[in-house]
């Protein structure tokens, strides 16, 4: 009798497990009136996903990854979505905290992997394993104010412009009596170190080098020192940056949008601040590749990053992880993605704004999807911006440079940020000595312990 009861109970439990749908928490935009169309589009997509995957029940979570701490709180409460779109710069931190799971096995078998630009995955490769699927990519480049250039007789930058051209444009557009700077770099927070690395790469230097599986800091090289000296000159030789140079990420686009700077560097969405908050005319914003640094190693280079789709490390069961992967690839690079783009434009139009983000696809440039995306942007000039001409867009991938492979946020925030601030605040700063000291400390305090941990 007991055995029969046991079998019945086991069968019930087994059936129950089989019958219960897998619950998958998926992100939808923040619940604000401005996001109405985007939320509607996402809810419709959830319905289609559930119809296509009967064993999966989706729970919509209002969530957009940011660095305000919301993500940390939601993780602590186990309320963050099982699938998230996160920044490339967070890859190492998220992997180190086990907040993302490896997607290598899934990616290998996905038929659309071949559609991607081969470098697109790089920012989210940690230890040779892919942890994320590229959603949107960016390669940093220069934004310039066309009117300010024209007013000072500065020609539009050519595709192969150099630091000398950049300096010339910067000096000519600077008008300190009017509070106008030729160039507004970031000078506060980790973003200032992030922005400085662009110049190290342009000068032909690197931040880190991996040798025999170990990572070494190399930003004391002559090329990196050249970049540091250039930064110092921006402030003390040319006096071409804002007097109040300690600007964070958002600040520089406010400065640019209020015509207090003629040039800024941007990844993809900083310009939205200038356009939507400061009402800058998108037609007045020109795009240029990063200028080529001096010397034989000088090159045109900008940080490659973007947003990546990842599976939350708190999704423990294989069923949820499989469901998360199905969500990641669901309608990926098909008409639904285009419908989402149209919803974003609709949102922008309803709010009398522009969908101003730079649309740089991780797919190969000749992919039909990329062409369709661009066509939608071109068809909606009142609420969307199709950035860049064909020559710029085809040259841009050639300037991509990935971020430091280890402890990127550390080197940006704790070391290079301080380097930038010393260069901007101390007239007698010795660029070479400062770079050497920061390089030495970063190696001893961060990389050596990590290298030692690998030996254990």
């Amino acid at each position: 009798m007991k055995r029969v009861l046991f079998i019945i109970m086991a069968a019930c439990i087994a059936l129950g497990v089989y019958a219960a749908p897998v619950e998958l928490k998926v992100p939808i935009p923040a619940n604000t009136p401005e996001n109405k169309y985007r939320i509607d589009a996402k809810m419709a997509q959830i319905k289609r996903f559930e119809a296509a995957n009967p064993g999966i029940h989706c729970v919509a979570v209002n969530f957009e990854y940011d660095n305000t701490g919301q993500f940390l709180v939601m993780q602590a409460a186990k309320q963050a979505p099982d699938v998230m779109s996160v920044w490339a710069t967070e890859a190492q931190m998220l992997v180190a905290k086990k907040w993302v799971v490896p997607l290598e096995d899934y990616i290998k078998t996905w038929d659309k992997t071949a559609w991607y630009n081969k470098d697109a995955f790089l920012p989210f490769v940690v230890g040779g394993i892919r942890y994320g699927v590229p959603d949107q990519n960016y390669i940093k480049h220069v934004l310039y104010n066309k009117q300010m250039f024209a007013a000072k007789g500065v020609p539009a930058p050519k595709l192969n412009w150099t630091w000398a051209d950049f300096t010339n444009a910067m000096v000519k557009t600077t008008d300190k009596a009017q509070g106008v700077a030729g160039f507004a770099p970031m000078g506060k927070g980790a973003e200032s170190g992030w922005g400085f690395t662009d110049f190290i790469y342009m000068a032909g230097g690197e931040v880190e080098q991996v040798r025999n599986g170990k990572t070494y800091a190399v930003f004391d090289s002559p090329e990196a020192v050249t970049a540091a000296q250039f930064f110092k000159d921006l402030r003390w030789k040319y006096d071409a940056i804002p007097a109040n140079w300690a600007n964070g990420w958002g600040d520089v686009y406010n400065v640019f949008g209020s015509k207090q700077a003629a040039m800024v560097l941007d990844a993809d969405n900083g310009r939205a601040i200038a356009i939507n908050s400061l009402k800058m005319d998108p037609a007045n914003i020109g795009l240029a590749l990063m200028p080529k640094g001096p010397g034989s190693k000088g090159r045109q280079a900008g940080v490659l990053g973007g947003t990546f789709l990842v599976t939350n490390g708190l999704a423990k069961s294989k069923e949820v992880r499989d469901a998360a992967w199905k969500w990641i690839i669901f309608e990926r690079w098909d008409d639904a993605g285009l419908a989402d783009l149209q919803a974003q434009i609709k949102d922008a139009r309803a709010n009398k704004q522009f969908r101003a983000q730079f649309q740089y696809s991780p797919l190969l440039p000749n992919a039909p999807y990329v062409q369709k995306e661009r066509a939608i942007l071109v068809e909606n000039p009142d609420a969307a911006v199709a950035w860049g001409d064909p020559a710029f867009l085809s040259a841009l991938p050639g300037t991509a440079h990935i971020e430091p492979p280890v402890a990127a946020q550390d080197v940006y925030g704790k070391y290079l940020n301080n380097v930038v601030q010393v260069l901007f605040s101390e007239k007698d700063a010795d660029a070479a000595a400062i770079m050497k000291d920061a390089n030495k400390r970063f190696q001893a305090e961060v990389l050596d312990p990590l290298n030692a941990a690998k030996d254990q």
Partner: protein
Amino acid sequence: MEQALGKGRGKYGMGLLFLVPALLVFGLFQWYPIVQNFLLAFQSYVPGFDKEWVGLKNILYILHDPRLPKAILNTLEFVGICLVVGFFVPIVVAITVMEIRRGRGFFRLAIYIPNMIPGIALYIIWRWVFNPDFGLLNQFIGIFGVPHQQWVLSSRQVLPSLSLMATWAGFGGTAVLYMSSLTTVSAELYEAAELEGAGFLQRVRSVTLPAISGTINLLLVLQLIATFQVLQEPFVMTAGGPNNASLTVMLLTFNYAFEDVEFGRAGALGSLLFLALLGLSYLYVKRSGLAKAKGA
């Protein structure tokens, strides 16, 4: 005995019952986080995962962090400047305003206005005040032929600048407390002093300051505790820069938690700061006789 206890319960029971909500709120939102913070100092915590005990690892890490000595020195410098400037200014202002015969209400309101400005608005205003090109401060010193200064953009000037801003923003509130205390000083004492031929300064020294010494002692310790925990000013205005010149202990604690995502280290540093302030306050209260005065 039981009867006595029963009477006691009846006498205080209702009063104790009224205390329960306050105890719950304090317990849940004040004491429980403090206890958790102490525990966190000995744990590794990644939100979403279970905490792990790591012994003294967090404390050893922060003690070896090269940023900590800098943060401590910066905090001490900030506290020092705030005490030198911010401690005396409210007393002087309060006494001066109380001496004014006409328009006292206006001045009382005027000095309190900075306290009513929302934090973010305050910092935006001061970013412009400190602006090296157009800032009010540089325009003002320019009148006297002093060259423009870098203020918060200079490693040497950033802490005095932030102290100046903090003092301006907070002195009104403290001055109002002093004024309130001054109203309790018996007018007869002043009259007697005047009859004895005491001038303004003598009255202040012999009547006013002794009469409000209890308030001065209390506010000094409160100000000490508050300024040691300086976070907002460097966080918003400089993010600890330039080159960590305005990195304070609290800002370093914040950075451990929300930039490095190392909550255990944040807990360790927060706990150490708490213990340091507790010790400092205890010493001060003991030596100044503040506890005795309050108890009496």
